[in-house]
């Protein structure tokens, strides 16, 4: 099947849905494709709590204060133009979502804002305990329903971007529920596929966040930036088994109630590490990167909890106060057999967000003309460490910007589609054959374990070197042609296509992590502790003859307004 549109948006999370809406508003015909269902997969629907934005209603605020906090969190590596755009455009997008009835929580006559770690004041809006993400997704889905000119297609996995004479001209996809190959001609293509947290054993995002967009961009010839910076969330749920809940759910309650982190010997330990952290705000003893460090070091020293993390305790909080703070969540915990008045839960750092991504200009265009990216899929706005609350804001802001720019490009371009340029990927899908392969679902978990153990938050030259050797071995074992079980919704084919992307992206993280001989933000080298001024630079990744190539670039200065 062959489809045509002005703009193709890949990924229907917050960024992709916003991009589609803005592109259609600018008059473009849009196809919004997702490998999952529209507005269901990805990270947005999982977002639990806060969205950072300088509204200034509750407390006087300005986007410049928000920018200062964003840059400080980014530890010197932010692309200031992108960070400023995030902070400056944020209020308009949040108010637009408000007009679309997302239901931001209110206090009196204004939208309520809370003080999250790393911010200098109360700045974060939210919908309700743990339901900000679902509300955001629902609101954008409703807007898609009302818009005209947007064709939504779920179960459509994009396999490759098609590039002709250096310009993006569409994509080749596999329709999962029928197995058929679909070619999509588009004058502008937007990557909105989110991050890469699925590369790690324990993560807080969806199954389909395997870094697809980074791999698509690399193979299309685009550049990636800051790929060594993977954000780990310090207190992801570890044990006992908890289902029906987001694994990072403990954070707001810990903040509200002062939940205590204890090591395996039931001793508090955060203070021991707090002296190392200049940005401690007193209430939240440690920022995300330092808390991840503290828990990991306790475990390494043999003082971890039984499942390999730390204990989180609310036992000092009276029952009534617990119930008031947790609300209906208490009942969902009870359904999981968890009674916080009687027991401790175990938490550990989990992969949460990716700072790196597609290198884009201020129009969200990659280094390949006609190829755009937005949301978590881009790099630069958050530098070496993301400020809490910036992820949903950037999804809206960069999604809208990408949609506008892609529509504008399409209005002045003619179709550039070429069957010949699409042929290699069409042939790849055609080459899928019934054959015996090692279980690729096992290969996925092997890769996740490798990344967690060797390319996790704390790295060494030795571990990173071993990881790269193993990634190369797995890639050669995967082979050049996918297996097939000869039927629709083919899990064998999906695993193979996923691994093809995941292995490429895993290497795109490990290679710059090995090269960066310092510790900064989310990239911590045990063999190179401490930030090195000489490393205040970005590393750029490209694919050169099928191999990952690494270059350096100086931090871009903010263009004068």
């Amino acid at each position, binding site marked *: 099947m062959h489809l045509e549109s002005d703009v193709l948006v890949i990924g229907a999370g917050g960024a992709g849905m916003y991009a589609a809406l803005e592109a259609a508003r600018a008059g473009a015909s849009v196809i919004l494709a997702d490998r999952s269902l529209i507005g269901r997969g990805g990270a947005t629907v999982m977002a639990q709590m806060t969205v950072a934005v300088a509204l200034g209603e509750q407390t006087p605020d300005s986007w410049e204060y928000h920018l200062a906090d964003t840059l400080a969190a980014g530890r010197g590596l932010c692309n200031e133009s992108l960070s400023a755009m995030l902070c400056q455009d944020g209020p308009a997008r949040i108010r637009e979502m408000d007009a679309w009835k997302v239901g931001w929580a209110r206090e009196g006559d204004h939208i309520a804002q809370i003080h999250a770690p790393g911010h200098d004041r109360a700045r974060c809006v939210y919908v309700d305990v743990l339901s900000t993400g679902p509300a955001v997704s629902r609101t954008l889905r409703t807007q898609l329903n009302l818009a005209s000119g947007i064709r939504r297609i779920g*179960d459509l996995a994009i396999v490759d971007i098609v590039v002709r004479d250096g310009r993006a001209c569409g994509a080749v996809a596999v329709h999962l529920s029928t197995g058929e190959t679909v070619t999509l001609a588009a004058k502008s293509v937007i990557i909105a596929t989110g991050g890469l947290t699925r590369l790690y054993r324990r993560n807080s995002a969806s199954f389909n966040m395997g870094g697809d967009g980074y791999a698509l961009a690399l193979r299309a010839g685009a550049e990636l930036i800051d790929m060594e910076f993977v954000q780990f969330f310090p207190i992801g749920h570890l044990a006992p088994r908890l289902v029906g809940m987001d694994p990072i759910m403990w954070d707001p309650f810990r903040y509200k109630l002062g939940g205590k982190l204890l090591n395996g010997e039931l001793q508090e330990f955060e203070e021991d590490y707090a002296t190392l952290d200049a940005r401690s705000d007193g209430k939240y003893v440690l920022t995300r990167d330092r808390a991840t460090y503290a828990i990991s070091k306790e475990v390494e020293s043999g003082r971890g909890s039984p499942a390999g993390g730390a204990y989180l305790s609310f036992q000092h909080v009276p029952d009534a106060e617990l119930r008031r703070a947790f609300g209906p969540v208490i009942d969902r915990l009870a359904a999981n057999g968890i009674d916080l008045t009687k027991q401790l839960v175990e938490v550990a750092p989990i992969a949460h967000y990716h700072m790196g991504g597609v290198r884009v200009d201020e129009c969200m265009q990659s280094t390949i003309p006609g190829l755009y990216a937005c949301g978590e899929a881009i790099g630069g706005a958050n530098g070496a460490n993301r400020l809490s609350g910036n992820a949903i804001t950037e999804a809206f802001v960069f999604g809208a910007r990408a949609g506008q720019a892609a529509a504008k490009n399409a209005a002045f371009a003619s179709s550039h589609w070429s069957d010949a340029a699409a042929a290699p990927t069409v042939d790849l899908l055609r080459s899928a054959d019934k054959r015996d392969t090692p279980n690729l679902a096992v290969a996925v978990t092997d890769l996740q374990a490798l990344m967690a153990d060797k390319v996790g938050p704390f790295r060494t030259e030795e571990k990173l070197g071993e990881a790269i050797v193993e990634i190369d071995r797995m890639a050669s074992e995967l082979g050049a042609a996918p297996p097939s079980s000869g039927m629709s919704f083919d899990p064998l084919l999906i695993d193979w296509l996923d691994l093809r992307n995941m292995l490429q992206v895993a290497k795109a993280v490990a290679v710059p992590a090995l090269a960066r001989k310092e510790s900064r933000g989310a990239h911590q080298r045990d063999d190179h502790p401490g930030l090195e001024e000489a490393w205040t630079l970005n590393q750029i990744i490209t694919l050169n003859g099928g191999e990952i190539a690494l270059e350096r670039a100086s931090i871009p200065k903010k263009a004068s307004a």
Partner: protein
Amino acid sequence: MKATLQIKRGTPDTAPHVETFEVDFEAGQSILDGLRAVRHDKDPTLAFRFACINANACKECMMLIDDKIDYACTVKLKEGVTMLAPLPKKALVRDLVTEIAPPNERLHGRG
């Protein structure tokens, strides 16, 4: 503990058949955990839908669990037999996967 999953499998073109898998589990684990264990340890060709992994946010893993429509990510594994089947009133795609997208969000059969 061991759970026995009796899974109704097939495609629109083949007669459905039931396959039985035994999986080890710990208290608190979900049916979705069990299905992922089946793919990992026994049969990687088993098809089922999910995105958010046990957070009950994406709502994609709806199926028939012991003759009741429910989410695989919130129903717990239990000792003994659990019967799993695709949603009865949705078009079958394969195994436990059905066509659950709204018609105007599909490639074919736009409403």
